[in-house]
């Protein structure tokens, strides 16, 4: 009964997405949607395949991937470190609380032109932008994870005479793991958004820049192909991480 519902949901989701794609395809093919506005999805896919095969966008892809990778690693390291530090200092934490609560209400992208003015038009301001967007999410998740370690588990550690290092390795980290994982997943999504948006607004290479460049050059074929690329890559990564996370959570959820 339950499994059946799961299947029905998956089918319905596929149906909704597939139906939407087919509808756009039909509207484009029949000329209801102007080809100067939107291309049929099949055309986008064909163009993307062509672009990938030609190796034309390999450089931009490598640039974006490298920038995202650097921003991601730095965000996770910095966010985790700050999270642990601030968690250990309740006084500092109380002072930072209102700041953290309103951090994400500030639209950081407005800082990007300033970062470009400071660091120059290269990958560096993009990495900083990605970090500004992602590191606090990792930091807050780390603190949430450390906050929610059941006190009784720390008492179990003492009852079993675990050393400090062993307690961290065997109790603290596994207990906080779901939150740390959520933090990393958010950090990845946010560095993606930060880096690609930065490239889009002002950059000399990268996928985001290539989309903006194609838009300005009225090259709809390249533009839509690249949008499809970003959409597919991000969705596949997010969905698989989310699925893994759900499985993990299900295993842990207390009845």
């Amino acid at each position, binding site marked *: 009964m339950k499994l059946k519902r799961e299947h029905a949901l998956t089918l319905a989701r596929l149906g909704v997405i597939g139906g939407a794609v087919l509808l756009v395809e039909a509207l484009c093919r029949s000329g209801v949607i102007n080809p100067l506005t939107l291309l049929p999805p099949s055309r986008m896919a064909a163009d993307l395949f062509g672009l990938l095969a030609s190796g034309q966008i390999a450089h931009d892809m490598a640039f974006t991937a490298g920038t995202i990778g650097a921003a991601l690693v730095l965000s996770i390291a910095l966010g985790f470190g700050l999270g642990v530090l601030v968690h250990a200092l309740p006084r500092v934490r109380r002072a930072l609380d209102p700041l953290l609560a309103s951090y994400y209400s500030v639209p950081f992208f407005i800082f990007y032109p300033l970062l470009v003015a400071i660091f120059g038009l290269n990958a560096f301001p993009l990495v900083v932008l990605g970090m500004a967007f992602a590191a606090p999410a990792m930091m807050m998740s780390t603190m949430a994870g450390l906050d929610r370690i*059941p*006190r*009784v*588990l720390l*008492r*179990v550690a*003492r*009852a*079993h*005479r*675990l050393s400090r290092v*062993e307690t961290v390795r*065997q*109790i603290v980290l*596994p*207990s906080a*793991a779901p939150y740390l994982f959520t933090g990393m997943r958010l950090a990845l999504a946010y560095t993606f958004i930060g880096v690609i948006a930065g490239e889009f607004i002002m950059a000399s290479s990268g996928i985001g820049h290539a989309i903006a460049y194609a838009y300005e050059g009225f090259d709809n074929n390249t533009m839509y192909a690249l949008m499809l690329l970003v959409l597919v890559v991000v969705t596949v990564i997010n969905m698989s991480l989310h699925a893994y996370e759900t499985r993990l959570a*299900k*295993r*842990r*959820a*207390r*009845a």
Partner: protein
Amino acid sequence: MTALVQRARMDDTLAEAVGPPPVVSLRAVTRVYPGVKPVEALAPTDLDLNPGEFFSVVGPSGCGKSTLLDVLSGLGRPTSGTVTFNGQAVDGVVPEGVGIVFQEDASFPWLTVRDNVAFGLKHSTVPADESQRRVDHALRFMGLADFAGAYPAQLSGGMRQRVCIARTLVTRPSLILLDEPFGALDQQTRLLMGDELLRLWRETGATILLITHALDEAAMLSDRVGVMSARPGRFIDMVETGWPRERDSSIVSDPRFGEITARLWSRLRAESLRAMGAQGPGGGR
């Protein structure tokens, strides 16, 4: 009150005189929680646990039962006084040979039932094949063998508490401390778990200290029940039950069971009222 304490002390001295040396001794132990308004959780307390004894502590909510367990186990330090386990001073470190089962669900959600139980031996010098055997035995003993590969989330509350007991059992403790281990379970499960506990106690020969707020549980399981006062906690009565070592939950129909429970309640009623008055309605732990 002091007369009662003195009598309790006398009972202990008597037991000391005839039996082997006690497993645990508390001498003039107090615990004060510092703060703007310091809280005296434990008034000067003496206690001896005899080898192989099943001892229970009952008392009103917030009377310092759990503080007693903390101090006795080495999880917490007494503010003054001494605690010894097998003649060695206990000072802020849980000695080897002591197993603790907590009230809260303390199973590790990220480990399978088997790995949870094996955790108890992960840091010991017990060789691998021996620890394998002990884990298998503990799983079977606690009726968990069929769930060895499951995660705690897939089990009921009672089963999860069994996991925690099994995790303690594999270390072969000579003293097992249980802090309201069945507090979160329903009445039927509690009775059954009580039987399990008696079986475990008989087969391991360990000394057991059980902290509980259920008078019937204390009356049914124990050789001796200590009644604690409202905060600051101290023993106001020691009740010998006189049950045979071979016993189970069927003794609830014994008239003596009713007498013991009634005596415990008569001691506790006034204390519980005092504790409630001090905390106000709804003030739990």
